């Protein structure tokens, strides 16, 4: 069967491409089939890998590229291979800054700082260094401030196919989670007010 063959080829291609991933276009070209046929083939393959519990990998679409990834629920086994199992995740400041850029892009640093109420040079710098945001242009008018936007790397980092997959910006939210800093500051505060 020709389609069986296609799957073998695609599997080899995806394996070779690794985290660079392959676009639907590239797959269609490599197999010499139409875009639509490639799409169908890929969604079929995605399902095959997903459903088959004897498979440790699956096909993800990050930044509109297909790539092989290990299955989520196997991560504990993989982490056993590493000495330091926790990957370097972003700090709260980094996440807040990234969220503002993701939802408001293109956005200047001053605009980010207006929302957060603090200086944001550090987080912006870190996000650039990690390739999650980039300069996407300059603001019109005086100062020509740098405008920031997210990158493809950002989509991959959060496991998103494209920007439309960003969770909708929460409208008004009632805070419910208690912060764990409470007890720590509580005792200090009490101590201070007792002294007064």
């Amino acid at each position: 069967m020709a389609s069986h063959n296609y799957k073998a080829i695609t599997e080899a291609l995806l394996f070779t491409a690794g985290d660079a991933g392959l676009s639907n276009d590239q797959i269609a070209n490599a197999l010499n089939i139409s875009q639509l046929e490639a799409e169908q083939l890929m969604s079929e393959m995605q399902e095959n890998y997903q459903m088959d519990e004897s498979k440790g990998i699956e096909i993800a679409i990050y930044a509109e590229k297909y790539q092989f990834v290990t299955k989520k629920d196997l991560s504990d086994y993989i982490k056993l291979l590493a000495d330091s199992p926790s990957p370097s995740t972003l700090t709260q400041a980094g996440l807040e800054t990234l969220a503002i850029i993701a939802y408001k892009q293109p956005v200047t640093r001053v605009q980010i700082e207006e929302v957060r109420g603090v200086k944001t040079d550090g987080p912006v710098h870190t996000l650039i260094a990690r390739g999650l945001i980039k300069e996407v242009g300059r603001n019109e008018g005086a100062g020509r401030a740098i405008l920031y936007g997210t990158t493809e790397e950002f989509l991959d980092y959060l496991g998103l196919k494209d920007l439309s997959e960003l969770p909708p910006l929460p409208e008004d939210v009632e805070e419910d989670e208690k912060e764990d800093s409470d007890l720590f500051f509580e005792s200090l505060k009490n101590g201070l007010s007792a002294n007064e």
Partner: protein
Amino acid sequence: MEYTVKVDAFEGPLDLLLHLIQGLEIDIYDIPMAEISEQYTLYIKAMSVLELNTASEYLVMAATLMSIKSRMLLPKQEEQWEEDQQFEEDPREELVEKLIEYRKYKKAATELKDKEQERSMHFTKPPEDLSSYAQPDVSDEKMQIELADLIGAFNKLMRRKKIKKPMSTRITRQEISIETRMTEILETIRADARPKPFSALFPVAEKPHMVVSFLAVLELVKRQEIHINQDHNFSEIMVGSTEGVSLVGQS
């Protein structure tokens, strides 16, 4: 060095205010300014006692709170609007808007964190290096090699040999001279008539040795004792002896 406690509890004055509002179970649309100002000041004091980095933004916010508080003590201004509606100008309005806006993105940040977490549980691998299969350049002319190509090749080599920067730096004396390496390299190349791959001239995977070797190669090229060729794009750079091959360099 100052002793600093790294507490990522608050990401700025707005974050601290939200924390207070939530802790005191205050309605964000009706903030009791006296209470919040007092609490806020207490936290700032606590932070300075701990020598946390009380950035100027926190102090600006403290001043803002005081100013709002004092304005609220003033008799209320009532403005007459068309359609006979009465609006009270609330000095807290701007602050509330800011807080709500900030809270929105703070929440969004936690959602991104979940995404980040989830994505980090999927592992991938870097792509295979397929450069050796890349289509050679159609032109059959001998490629000119420039210094940049050599440096590029050198860098690739360094990476391939996985030379890591030492954790601590120590000063070592130069163990081999460029002259010595030049002689060695010439010997290697003249061992038989066939050109040797560029990488063969770097047998020792130590940074100083590789740098000296590279400088030696450059010097030999300059003196036209060796010649360097690359047949086509991505093919191995080959180094051969000029002895007996070329018309130059025979003394």
